Every structure is written in structure tokens, then in C-alpha cells.
């Protein structure tokens, strides 16, 4: 019998608020150490937490998106432990009564097969600060800027059976929280952190002892780390050893996981309800208000793109890959009313240039409006598709709108039949040998004439008209 892999994920999604979950300090990334820590964040005596209510609808949004029960009365608990970057000596979290309760499900697709992954719960909590071990020789520095940052910890069921499934689930959740606008998904800055609990067992026997892989900041590395951990556990068990419950770190440089070497006594966090905070009571009206603001979910969007826009599954999946991408695309279509052409431009020139410049679609130098303006000029024959690419490049380098560029550069398409006729006449007169060959049955020569006319017009002649006039003249 072969080993069965069992994986559950804990995802920490940093919520997109301006301030911390229990204090008014900013949570913007990258500030000087301890410049975003006020008296509360420092754990000063007598300081009291006040809930930043902006986190509530964000958590409800996730709950609604995955079809989970919303905790009507969720309670903040204290998780007690000592660490220098935990100023109060406890982390405020939710233990017995989370804001997103059971029932959540997320659908993933791996190698053509769809699978449902259960979400056990999601709860609100505050982040800890950061210990800095390399700034002061022989000493550890503490930066409390991050302490109190609002997190939604999303806990899955142990439903995944391979590293691929785990990554598919993590990506799905990553897409979801960004679509919902509750997390910016930035894995490098730690806004979206994935901890993987991995174990193996023989089917039909109880689950094996799990190891936790923490703080891996890319999907690629998550997959590699899980694969390595599976191999390691198989090796340990097959050589008669036992898997130890522990936290392991993934070293991308050495491509190995290793134990954090912490004493793994069963931690007793002595959870109890935080007496400084009132329970969060959520009414039916609160839920309905959030429901009314729910954006269209990616799966629904994909189906709509195929049905309404007549796009392929591939195109629909690409264009709904992020909420920003879908919004961009829909803004272009809204103006052009041409889904397929718009899709080609967004997926083609636009995405290519964004990739080359390492830009997100939200930061595109060519706005949806500008791109739509370009497509419109193709549609009304002001410019050809070929010239359009030239105009697009000019827009990219900030030379203005399509109209401005066409005007300034004199790129307007030649649609005057007599002007085109004159060009055609010239080409035919200068290439008599080729004309003879064509008339002698070498129909492939037609392309040569088109090319010559376009060249003579510096690309600005309307290709359809060029074709028509050439055909007439060569009869």
C-alpha cells in the first residue's frame, strides 16, 4: 500500500485597513522601526484595545464568498505566551467563537479534475512584531510596527492530498481575498502567508504526525517545500523512524526543510475571553449589507465571459486572473463593445508590455480608457492594426492618447481610393516582371504587391482597400 499525503493549510491574510486592529497606528509597509507603534502597541500599562470596526465586513465578505456560517457572536480571546515581539504577553485572537464559522468550501482544479476543499474557520487576530537578530551584535532588536496589524487566519480542513492541490488551494484563496478587496495579496511583504501542515499515512489508518512548514513566500517554494517534506517523511517512516511534530523552515537556497530546533513541548496558551473587548455581535442586516457590496466572484465571472462575451475558456480564465485585470478588461469592453478584439489587445500587447516592465495591470501606463480609444480608431478604420501597435508603443512611452499620437505623427490611414489607386499604379508599373508572373498563374505574387503598396504608403494605406484595388487592376 502506498502512502497517502494529508495537507491542511493555515493562511494569514493581512486585511486592507489603514490602521491596526486595536490601535490607531498606521500599518503601511516599510516604515522605520517602531515609528508606527503607539502606547498601546508598546504594551504600556493601562492601555486598552479598541476594535477597528473596518475589519468586520472584510471578514464577513470572505465568509459569504466561501459559503460559511458567519459567527453571530464572535469573541476575542487572549493567547498567552512570552516573546519579546509580543508586547502584552498575549496575542488577541479568536479561539472558541470565530467570526467565520464552519461550512466554507473552495473548489480547486488540478490536472483537469475539480475538488472541493473545506474551510474549517477563519478568525480575526493581531499580528506580532518582528525580532531583528542581525542589527545589533549580541543583541536582538524588536520592531513593533507590525504588532497589531489585522490578520484573518483562514484554516482549511486537511483535505489536500498533494503539493499541487495545496498550491491550487492557496492560489485560489489568494485570488479570492484580492477579488474581495480584503487583502492586497503581496506575498513578498508578508500580506499573504501560508503555513502548511503536512503528514503521511496509509489509507484507512489514522492520520500521521504532522510537521508545519512556515513562512514560505512564493507558491513555487510552497510546492517544492511540501514535496521535499513528503519525501523526508516517507524516508523517516520507511527506515523505521517516527515523524516528530515540529515546525520546519524551508531553505530555498539549499532546497531543504529543516527543524527550527524549538523545544516542542505542547504549548499551553491558556486561552480565555479578553475582558477588555466586547463580543462582536453581527445581525442579519449587517450580513445583508455586506452581501449587497460583494463583488462578482471569479468563477461566476469566468462563466459570464464565456457565455456573454463568447470568449474561450482560456481567455476567460486569463482575463479573470485578478480582479484588477477583469476590471481593466471590462472597462475596455464597455467602451468598444468588442469583447474579442479587446481581449486580444489586453492579453496580447498590454500584458506583454506589463510583463516586460514588471508592472501590475493596476499600474499600467496605458489606461483602459486609452486602450479603448486605440481600439476604436482601428474599428473606424482611422488606423490599421499594424499602425495600432506603433501607436500603442507611443502610448506606453507617454506620448498621449491614440488620437493625439495619430494626429501628431500623421499616422492616419489612407482611405482615399484615388490616392491608393495611384500607389497601386506605381507599384504595378515598376514591377512589370512580377505582374507577368502573376498573370501567368503565380497567384502567390499577390502578397508581394500588397506589401509593396503598403511600404509605399508607409503602412498607412487601408489594407482592405489595397487588396480590392489590386484585385481589380490585376484582372
Amino acid at each position, binding site marked *: 500500500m502506498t502512502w497517502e499525503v494529508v495537507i491542511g493549510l493555515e493562511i494569514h491574510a493581512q486585511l486592507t485597513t489603514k490602521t491596526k486592529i486595536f490601535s490607531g497606528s498606521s500599518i503601511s509597509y516599510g516604515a522605520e522601526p517602531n515609528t508606527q507603534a503607539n*502606547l498601546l502597541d*508598546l*504594551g*504600556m*500599562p*493601562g*492601555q*486598552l*484595545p*479598541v*476594535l477597528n470596526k473596518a475589519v468586520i465586513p472584510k471578514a464577513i465578505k470572505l465568509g459569504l464568498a466561501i459559503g460559511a456560517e458567519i459567527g453571530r457572536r464572535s469573541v476575542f480571546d*487572549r493567547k*498567552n505566551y*512570552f516573546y*519579546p515581539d509580543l*508586547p*502584552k*504577553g*498575549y496575542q488577541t485572537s479568536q479561539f472558541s467563537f470565530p467570526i467565520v464559522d464552519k461550512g466554507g468550501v473552495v473548489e480547486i482544479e488540478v490536472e483537469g479534475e475539480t475538488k472541493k476543499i473545506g474551510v474549517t474557520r477563519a478568525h480575526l487576530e493581531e499580528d506580532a512584531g518582528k525580532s531583528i537578530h542581525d542589527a545589533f551584535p549580541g543583541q*536582538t532588536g*524588536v520592531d513593533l510596527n507590525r504588532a497589531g496589524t489585522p490578520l484573518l487566519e483562514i484554516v482549511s480542513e486537511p483535505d489536500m492530498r498533494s503539493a499541487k492541490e495545496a498550491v491550487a488551494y492557496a492560489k485560489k484563496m489568494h485570488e479570492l481575498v484580492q477579488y474581495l478587496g480584503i487583502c492586497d495579496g503581496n506575498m513578498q511583504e508578508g500580506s499573504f502567508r501560508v503555513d502548511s501542515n503536512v503528514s503521511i499515512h496509509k489509507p484507512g489508518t489514522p492520520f500521521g504526525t504532522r510537521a508545519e512548514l512556515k513562512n514560505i513566500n512564493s507558491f513555487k517554494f510552497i510546492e517544492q517545500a511540501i514535496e521535499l517534506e513528503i519525501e523526508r517523511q516517507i524516508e523517516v517512516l520507511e527506515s523505521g523512524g517516527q515523524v516528530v511534530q515540529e515546525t520546519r523552515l524551508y531553505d530555498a537556497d539549499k532546497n531543504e526543510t529543516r527543524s527550527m530546533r524549538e523545544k516542542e513541548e*505542547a504549548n*499551553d496558551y*491558556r*486561552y*480565555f475571553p479578553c*475582558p*477588555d*473587548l*466586547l463580543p462582536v455581535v453581527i445581525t442579519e442586516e449587517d450580513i445583508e449589507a455586506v452581501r449587497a457590496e460583494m463583488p462578482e466572484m471569479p468563477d461566476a465571472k469566468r462563466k459570464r465571459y464565456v457565455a456573454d462575451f463568447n470568449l474561450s475558456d482560456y481567455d476567460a480564465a486569463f482575463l479573470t486572473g485578478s480582479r484588477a485585470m477583469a476590471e481593466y478588461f471590462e472597462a475596455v469592453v464597455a467602451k468598444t463593445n468588442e469583447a474579442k478584439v479587446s481581449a486580444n489587445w489586453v492579453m496580447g500587447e498590454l500584458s506583454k508590455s506589463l510583463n516586460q516592465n514588471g508592472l501590475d495591470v493596476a499600474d499600467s501606463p496605458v489606461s483602459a480608457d486609452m486602450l479603448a480609444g486605440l481600439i476604436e480608431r482601428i474599428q473606424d478604420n482611422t488606423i490599421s492594426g499594424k499602425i495600432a501597435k506603433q501607436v500603442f508603443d507611443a502610448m506606453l512611452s507617454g506620448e498621449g492618447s491614440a488620437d493625439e499620437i495619430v494626429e501628431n505623427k500623421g499616422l492616419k490611414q489612407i482611405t482615399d481610393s484615388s490616392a491608393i489607386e495611384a500607389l497601386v499604379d506605381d507599384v504595378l508599373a515598376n514591377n512589370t516582371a512580377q505582374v507577368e508572373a502573376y498573370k501567368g498563374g503565380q497567384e502567390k505574387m499577390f502578397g508581394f504587391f500588397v506589401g509593396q503598396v503598403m511600404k509605399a504608403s508607409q503602412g498607412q494605406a487601408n489594407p482592405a482597400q489595397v487588396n480590392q484595388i489590386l484585385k481589380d487592376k490585376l484582372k
Partner: protein
Amino acid sequence: MHTLSVKEMSEKLRNKEITSVALTQHYLDRIDQYDGDLNAYVTVTPELAMEMAKQADDMIAEGKGGLLTGIPVAHKDIFCTLDVKTTCGSKMLDNFIAPYDAKVVEESRKLGMPILGKTNMDEFAMGSSSESSYYGATKNPWDLKAVPGGSSGGSAAVIAAGLAPLATGSDTGGSIRQPASFCGITGIKPTYGAVSRYGMIAYASSFDQGGPMTRSAEESAWMLDVMAGFDERDSTSLEQPKQDYVSTLNNDIKGLKVGVPAEYFEAGLDEGVESNIRAAIAELEKLGAEIVEVSLPNKELAVPAYYVLAPAEASSNLSRFDGVRYGYRCENPTDLNDLYTRSRSEGFGAEVKRRIMVGAYALSAGYYDAYYLKAQKLRRMVRDDFVKAFEQCDVIVGPVAPTPAFNIGEKSDDPVSMYLADLYTIPVNLAGMPAMSVPAGFSNGRPVGLHLVGPYHSEAKLLNVAHQYQQVTNWHQQMPESYQ
């Protein structure tokens, strides 16, 4: 000047018969003269007091401020006070200069009440005698051999000895009322949430409540008016308009239903205390009150429940004192664990360590249900007793403490007998209801306090009853001879 009532001081200040500078200096002089023996202040702040007094005189001259502008105040050392050492009676915070004002201090400062200093207390408010302070025991002005009660023993002593006209205290299991009773002064623990806990160093957050400690009920009403009110910085602060504590003081109490629980007069109650309380009840009857018998059958459950719940919260609340960011840090720590272990072992006193250990135990895996959850159930039963009793009466009366002040050292080696000194006050904290201690006589020369307990939000009623009682008695005006 210290024998004047605060009302008289206020009138004289506004009539320019006295100045805040003179009044404040008078109290500073008395502190100099008497506090060496009493040890009621941890920190005296003469420069701050005099500077504030000058400002208060300016405010009065400009017709600004309120009735308490210019009247000095002493704050229990549990309230953070900007730029002033705030120790909570602990070695742990011996070097802690607070970087901000507690809400209570902020309000008194805004009003122009000169801060005389910070009063002594049981370490982290854990105690009933003020003996557990790192700064040594405070003594009872009525008898220097006796404790002043605790944990707000310093505040009670400074009022009794005339070393401050007004003081603040805090009450988690009786810490305002029991010292008020032992020192013969008036004190009120308001409804939980009436006074903001912002800046009040937490002991047991779901019980802690600040309140005034004064000579008379009228002064408590004035002071509570300064201290109470909604504060968005405290999530458990009551979001409702503040009561008018003052204008109802003179209402007569004819027809007031006074509940007397049989359970408050059982074995263990000092005879002298009982006879004084019975006499006080008779006095209320003379004022037109109707005496009804009520029952609080679960009173016995209160002390055990409290000594699970309060330490549980304390064990977590006191985790922040870890030697990392402020407060006491052990010398030459060898590693992180050593830093934590020694800073906390050396920085906390015995009673604090005892409660942290009890609390951590009650919350630990496998014991949580049996201790913490069970105690929460008992807490509800005790509260329900009160709710039921108040269907039959307007206020409940009884003794604040089973005995008058005991001697220093008498109970300090026996925590359980110390805990039982609070058996009448603790049930009220479990319920979160308001209660007062009102001077009601003496037993063997030591003061006795009458306990007035009311339903939620009945502070104005309690103060009214106490004030009416004080119109026909003069226990609250007595001062120990050597401090007159």
C-alpha cells in the same frame, strides 16, 4: 483649612477668601508633617501641585473651571500620570514614569485640580491591607498599629488624616469600600463601566472600577461627576449619559425600600460592627425608609469564584511586565528565559506571584472548565441573587467588612483569612453593581463602614441615601485626634 468641607473650600476659593496656592501649600505642609509615619503617599509632587494651583487660581480669576477647580487631589498610584512616577505599589514599576494621563487624571487636570501626589496601595491592587506595597505598609490614621485596609489604603488614609481633601481609588474586590470602612471615610465603587479604565493599570479587567474616596457623600458625588462618563478608549465604558449625582442628594428617602440580607449578619461578624450597622439601619428607618428582608443565598460562592477569575485575568494582564520595554529588568541576564524569569521573580512581590500562579493554573489546559468556566457560572449565580433581591428593594445594606481594621502583620501570613476580609464586598464586584462605604460608628476605637449596594446605574440613589444619612449623623466628620 483641612477641616473645611470641599463645598466650603470651593465657596471660599470662588469668593477669593482663599487661594488654591494657599490651600495646596497647606496640604503639602501637612503631608510633610504627617506622612513620614503614615506612609500614605508613594510620591508627593509639590512642584506639579503648586504649578497647577497657580493655574487654578488664574482659572478661578477668569471665572473658568468648575466647583472643584483649585481643590487638590491625590491619585491612587494605579492611575497613570503624565511625567510622574506611577508604580502600582510594585518594584516592577519603581522606575516607570508614565508617558500619559489616565482618563481620570486627565479629567481632574482639565478641571484644574492640583495633584498632590500618588497614594500607596497593595502591589498591583492585590490585597486588603496595603501591606503588600513595595514601598512599605501604609498605617491607619486612627491607630498606627492598624492597617488602613486595601488596596486603596493610601487614598483612604490621606482623606482620614487630612492629607488631601479628595482622592481617587479603584475597587476590584472591595478596594475602595473596605479601606473607606477601615479609615472612617466615604467611598463609592460605581457600576462597572461608569468610570473609564483607560490608564488605570489593570489587575482584573472585568472587575476593576475606579471611584472617589472622600470624607462625605456629597464630596463623592462631586468627584464622581469628574471621574465618570463615556470614554471611547475603553471598550467596556458605558455608552450612556452620565447621571446627575449632585442635584438629587437632597431628595428625601421616605418610602425607600432598604433590603437587609440575613446572610450579612451571620457568624464571624464582629459584635461592634454589627451593633453599629443595626443602629445605622434604624437611622435609615427614622428617615422614612422601609426595611425589608432579602436573601443572597449564593454569597458564599463569591469569594471562591473571585479568587479564580481575578487571578486568571491578572495572570494575563501582568504578562506585559517582562523586563523588555520598561519597568524592572534583572541584572546581567544570560538569555531571554533568564531575563523573563529573574525580572519577574525579582520585580513582583509574593502576593502578586501567588495570584499569577493561581490564575495561570486556572486557565491551563485540562483545568479551564473545572475552574475558570465553573467560576463564571458562579459569577452569574451571585449576580442573579442581587437582581432578584432588587425586585424587592431599592438598596441593600449591611457591613462593608466583618471586622474593623485589623493589626498590621495580623493576617499577612495567612492569605485565606485576608481574602475573607472581603466577603461582603466581592459579591458586588462579581455583579458589577455600584456600592458605597459610609462611616457608621466605631468598634473599639476603629471605624465601621455601612455598606450600601444598589442595582446597576443607581449611583445617584446611593449617594442620595448616604447624604441623607450624613445629614443626621456626624461619623463622617470625625477626625483622628492627632491629625486635627
